[in-house]
């Protein structure tokens, strides 16, 4: 007898439907899975056999053939365990087959029949809706994630027995609803109110957040670069619903959602170590999985110790920085993951870290310093709008009792500036000042005569290049937006010039 059960698998960011066909026929007892299964799918037969037995159902001593259609796409992962088991039960008449139609299944089985969580459930749920499936049965741990998709009945199950009884009609399950917990108010563990001193850096990060600018923090060890970077997501606008779904999908596929994870509403913060490989950063695998740049999508990618990263890894960051996405071409498939993040890089000013430090003399030779700084320059530095020197905070300033601005207050200003940009860029493909194309930057960020004169004088005296001029204009535009000003004034340009310290003549 033949049974068909619906399921799905993930390729890139999209799930595609997979039909699990189970045929139980007479012949020598066997269990075969076809349809390009990988090792994890092959092993499903052992799990399925044990799980069915331990759920007190029967594995027929007949010839069982499972086909995963379409048969020309490689299938991976343990999420087919549950649909295969359900298919076997249906094909042997242990549950009524007609109860399975219109329902899709996803889940890994333990030998005891328990249903274990899998990755990519949100994508599967979105795909299920498109497939015209009304009901989705997923592991209980993933149910809330799947329930993010409206108009879909989601059932969370804990084990195979429960699933079978539910399908036979012996057990009623309530569809899982999204818990409705207000996701707009996640408690942040970190806050800008914790940062003492660092007025300059705080201001720079506020500008960066407002205009979506990439930032480079330069300062001696222990000056607080990491602390500052960690707080940047707290002043970014919270994700909109569609963005949140997008980000949650990526985390879902990567299996990186927190346990019982629901929607990610906060811009993510990712800080890969400098020993990370290009594959870890960009994503990889024979069936590609998202890497750090995609996990930082709509959030912040923090690269500490920038010059320590491998040259080719930094080189590979160019595409995501320019296009906001990564394209991974593999033999099996070519996959595109979104990767529109804000880059925050940090580095010491020199190999020993103490160049310009007020506490210690730098012991590096000029050649060492040049070589070190050159490592960070090139393609990446070209994409960074703000250079911020982070100095060690002197101890009296650390002990000051002044209450400092919390992130929520800064975020309000950032939101106001972002709204101005949205109005300016309606019907344009870009949304922030940082991504104004070079051709029109002079038009969008037009200066008055005194402003132009100041910029010219600064170019002459400080040795700024034409390229850095464009960056200054973009940053000046953001400063004006924070100010609520229609025009970019001399004061805005003057401030913006202070954030280009690395471009200056040595």
């Amino acid at each position, binding site marked *: 007898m033949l049974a068909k059960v619906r399921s799905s698998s993930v390729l890139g960011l999209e799930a595609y439907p997979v039909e699990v066909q189970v045929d139980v026929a007479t012949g020598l007892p066997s269990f075969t899975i076809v349809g390009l299964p990988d090792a994890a799918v092959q092993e499903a037969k052992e799990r399925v056999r044990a799980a069915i037995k331990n759920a007190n159902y029967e594995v027929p001593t007949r010839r069982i053939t499972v086909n995963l259609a379409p048969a020309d796409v490689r299938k991976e992962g343990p999420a087919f365990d549950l649909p295969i088991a359900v298919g076997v039960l249906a094909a042997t008449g242990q549950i009524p087959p007609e109860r399975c139609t219109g329902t899709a299944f996803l889940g890994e089985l333990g030998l005891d029949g328990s249903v274990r969580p899998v990755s990519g459930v949100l994508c599967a749920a979105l795909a299920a809706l498109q497939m015209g499936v009304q009901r989705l049965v997923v592991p209980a741990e993933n149910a809330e994630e799947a329930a993010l998709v409206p108009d879909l009945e989601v059932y969370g199950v804990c084990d195979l027995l429960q699933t079978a009884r539910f399908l036979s009609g012996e057990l009623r399950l309530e569809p899982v609803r999204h818990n409705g917990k207000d996701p707009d108010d996640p408690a942040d563990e970190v806050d800008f109110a914790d940062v003492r*001193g*660092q*007025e*300059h850096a*705080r*201001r720079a990060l506020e500008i960066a957040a407002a205009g979506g600018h990439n930032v480079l923090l330069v300062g001696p060890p222990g000056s607080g670069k990491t602390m500052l970077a960690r707080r940047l997501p707290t002043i970014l606008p919270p994700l909109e619903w569609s963005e949140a779904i997008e980000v949650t999908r990526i985390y879902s596929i990567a299996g990186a959602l927190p346990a019982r994870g629901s929607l990610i509403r906060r811009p993510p913060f990712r800080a890969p170590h400098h020993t990370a490989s290009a594959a870890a950063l960009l994503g990889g695998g024979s069936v590609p999985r998202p890497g750090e740049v995609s996990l930082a999508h709509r959030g912040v990618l923090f690269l500490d110790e920038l010059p320590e990263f491998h040259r080719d890894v930094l080189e590979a960051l160019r595409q995501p920085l320019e296009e906001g996405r990564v394209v991974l071409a593999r033999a099996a498939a070519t996959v595109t993951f979104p990767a529109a993040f804000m880059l925050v890089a940090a580095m010491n*000013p020199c190999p020993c870290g103490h*160049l*310009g*430090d*007020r506490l210690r*003399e730098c012991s590096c*030779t*000029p050649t060492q310093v*040049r070589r070190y700084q050159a490592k960070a320059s090139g393609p990446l530095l070209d994409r960074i709008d703000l250079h911020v*020197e982070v*100095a060690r*905070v*002197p101890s009296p*300033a650390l002990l000051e009792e002044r209450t400092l601005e919390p992130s929520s207050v800064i975020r309000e200003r950032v939101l106001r500036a972002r709204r101005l940009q949205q109005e300016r860029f309606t019907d344009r493909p870009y949304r922030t000042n940082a991504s104004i194309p070079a051709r029109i930057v002079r038009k969008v960020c037009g200066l008055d005569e005194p402003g132009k004169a*100041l910029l010219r*004088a*600064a170019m002459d*005296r*400080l040795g700024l290049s034409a390229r850095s001029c464009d960056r200054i204009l973009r940053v000046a535009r953001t*400063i004006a937006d924070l100010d609520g000003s229609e025009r970019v004034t*001399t*004061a*805005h*340009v*003057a*401030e913006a*010039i*202070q*954030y280009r*310290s690395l471009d*200056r*003549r040595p």
Partner: protein
Amino acid sequence: MTEQDAWILLNAIPGVCPRTKHRLTAALGGPQHVLAAPRDHLRELATEAVARRIVDFRQQYDPQTLRDQAASVGARILALSDPDYPAALRTIPDPPLALYVRGRIPPDVAVAVVGTRSPSQDGVEVAYTMALDLGASGVCVLSGLARGIDAAAHRGALEADGVTVAVLGCGIDRVWPPEHAPLARFIQEQGGLLSEYPPGTPALRHHFPARNRILAGLAQAVVVVEARSRSGALITAEFALEFGREVFAVPGSVLNPRTQGTHQLLRDGAHLATGAADVLDRLRIRPRIRDVASLGPEEQALVDLLEEPLDLDDLVRACGRSSSAVAAMLTALEVQGVVRRLPGGRYVRGPSG
């Protein structure tokens, strides 16, 4: 062959030091006679090797070739007997027999500012300001185009629109260290480059002490800013003492290893210099004050705070204005040349280089 041509030819002979060349000239009664002397005679006066090098060279080259070679790299040659040859340099025991020059030769009033190649930020600061004030007062600043103090001194003089001359330890068509090529171009435009070596000569280790003797010879005074205990700058100071020039040393923290050399000089009786005024005073030159831009009260208040190098956060704390306002004012002050930013983000008074 004229005497000038003979000096030029004699100067270009490699592998024989100026002192030997001078000795031979004195013994034979003039540079022409050295070039005309039979090999055996030269061998008696010097060594076999010296005689061979002189004979080989005079057979291969003539003065016109050397002049053409210099002209092809945009330089001219001044022989010892040339009326333009720097008078001060003639007074030292073994002056260069000829000098390759691009741009100007230093005027009579010239001060050498020298020091370590790896200075502290304070050292760079002192050298820069010293040269700035010397330049503004019409004194030519001499140095060696090396990294660190030398470069800071040249930059200071350039900023003051003063004259600055670099004495090189390699051929005049070369720049060592290479990253100073743009600086060398500025120096040539506003002052000059000098070398005793023919074009194409690489920068060899033993050239630098010889170069230092020219620096000391050209200068009325030598100022040493930061030198470790065995620094080339100390060699320059030693030459200066030998030639009867004034020697100044800038004091510093006793914890800074880069002051060992300067403190030793002070111990040995060098004049103490904390700024250009000390040097100008001793040379009886009246200092000229730099133009001060007129500033608004808030900007003036900011400049007044910069008694010592401060970063933006220090200034924000001290003046109570927002970070953005202070940053904007600093840019305006920088552009006017009133303040300057140091690496690491601290600001000091004085124009940027």
